[in-house]
C-alpha cells in the first residue's frame, strides 16, 4: 500500500535529515581541546617584543611558564598575517595593563611568523603592553594543540589550563575569565 511505502521512506529519511541538520549546527573547524583541566605544557621561549610597564621584559631574555606559579597566565598565539588578531589586540593590551598588578601575566606567542614582521605589526598597532615570545618550529604551539591563530589560553595559578578560546577574544570575556580565575583559590577548580 502507498501509505506503508511512504512510512518506510519517512522512517529511513528522518534520521539522515536529523543527522545532517545536526552537522549544520557544528563548526567543523572547532576542535574540542583536551587540555582544559590538565597541566599547562611548560615552555622556555625567547622574548622578541619587550612589552611595557610592570610586566616588561628584556629582548633576548627567556620566559618560562614554570616561573609563574601563583600567577594567572594568559597565552595568546598570534601572527602579523592574522586578520582576527588585529580585532583582539586592543582588548588584550588594555586588560593586560589593568590586571598587571593583580597577579596576572600575559604573553604573546608568535606563530609561524618572523620577529621583524611581528615587531612591525606591534608598532603598526600602537604597541603591545605585554611581552611577546618566539616559538621556534612551533613546538610550543603544537604542545598546546594549536590549529590556528588567534587562540588564547588561560592558565590557573597552579599551572593548569583552565580555558581555551578560539578566535578573536573580547575584553568582556577576558575580564570575566580572569575575575573567575582570580576568585578561585590556588588548587581550586
Amino acid at each position, binding site marked *: 500500500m502507498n501509505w506503508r511505502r511512504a512510512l518506510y521512506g519517512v522512517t*529511513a529519511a528522518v534520521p539522515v535529515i536529523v543527522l545532517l541538520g545536526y552537522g549544520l549546527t557544528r563548526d567543523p573547524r572547532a*576542535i574540542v*581541546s*583536551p*587540555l582544559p583541566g590538565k597541566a599547562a605544557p611548560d615552555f622556555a621561549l625567547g622574548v622578541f617584543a619587550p612589552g611595557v610597564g610592570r610586566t616588561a621584559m628584556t629582548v633576548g631574555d627567556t620566559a618560562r611558564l614554570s616561573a609563574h606559579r601563583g600567577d594567572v597566565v594568559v597565552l595568546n598565539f598570534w601572527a602579523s598575517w592574522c586578520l582576527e588578531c588585529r580585532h583582539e589586540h586592543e582588548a588584550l593590551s588594555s586588560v593586560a595593563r589593568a590586571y598587571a598588578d593583580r597577579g596576572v601575566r600575559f604573553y604573546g606567542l608568535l606563530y609561524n611568523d618572523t620577529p621583524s614582521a611581528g615587531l612591525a605589526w606591534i608598532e603598526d598597532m600602537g604597541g603591545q603592553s605585554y611581552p611577546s615570545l618566539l616559538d621556534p*618550529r*612551533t613546538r610550543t*604551539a603544537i604542545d598546546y*594543540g594549536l590549529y590556528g591563530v588567534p587562540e588564547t589560553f588561560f592558565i590557573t595559578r597552579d599551572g593548569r589550563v583552565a580555558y581555551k578560546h578560539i578566535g578573536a577574544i573580547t575584553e568582556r570575556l577576558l575580564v570575566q575569565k580572569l575575575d573567575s580565575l582570580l576568585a578561585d583559590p590556588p588548587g581550586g577548580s
Partner: protein
Amino acid sequence: MSVALSPGAQTPAVPDTVTPAPRSVLTPADSVLEAQTTALASELRCPVCQGLSIQDSPSELALDMRDVIREQLRSGKSPDDVRQYFLDKYGEWILLEPKPEGFNLLVYLLPVAALLAGAAVVWRTVRRFTAPVAAEPAVLPPNPDA
C-alpha cells in the same frame, strides 16, 4: 662538489680541490625511522587543512608536526607513545580514522547499513519485474445476446 671538465673548458667556478659535500646516506635505522614517521604522519589530520593528513599536507605546521614525530621516535618513544602525544594535545579529532567505538561506530556502520538497504531495494525491484505473471482466467463480459 667536483665538476667534470671537457677538454679546453674554462676554469670552473668551484675549484676541484673543494672537498665534496658529504652525501647523506640513509642507514637501515634511518629507513625504519622514516617509514615509521610516514606511517604515523599518514594517520594524523593536519590541523590547518581540510581532510589532509600531515603526511600529505605541504603546510608549515604539518612539516613541524612531522619533525615532532621524527624527533620523538628518534628519542626512543614508540609509535603508540607518539600517537598518544598528539591525542593528548588535539584530542581524537587528530586521528583521520576515528576509533571504532561508541558514537564513532555510526561512521563505520551507517555506510554498511545503507549499502544493505540499497541492495534489498534493488533485489525487491528486480524480483518484481522478473517474476512470472500468474495467468488469470479471463473474465468475459456477459453476452447480451445470450
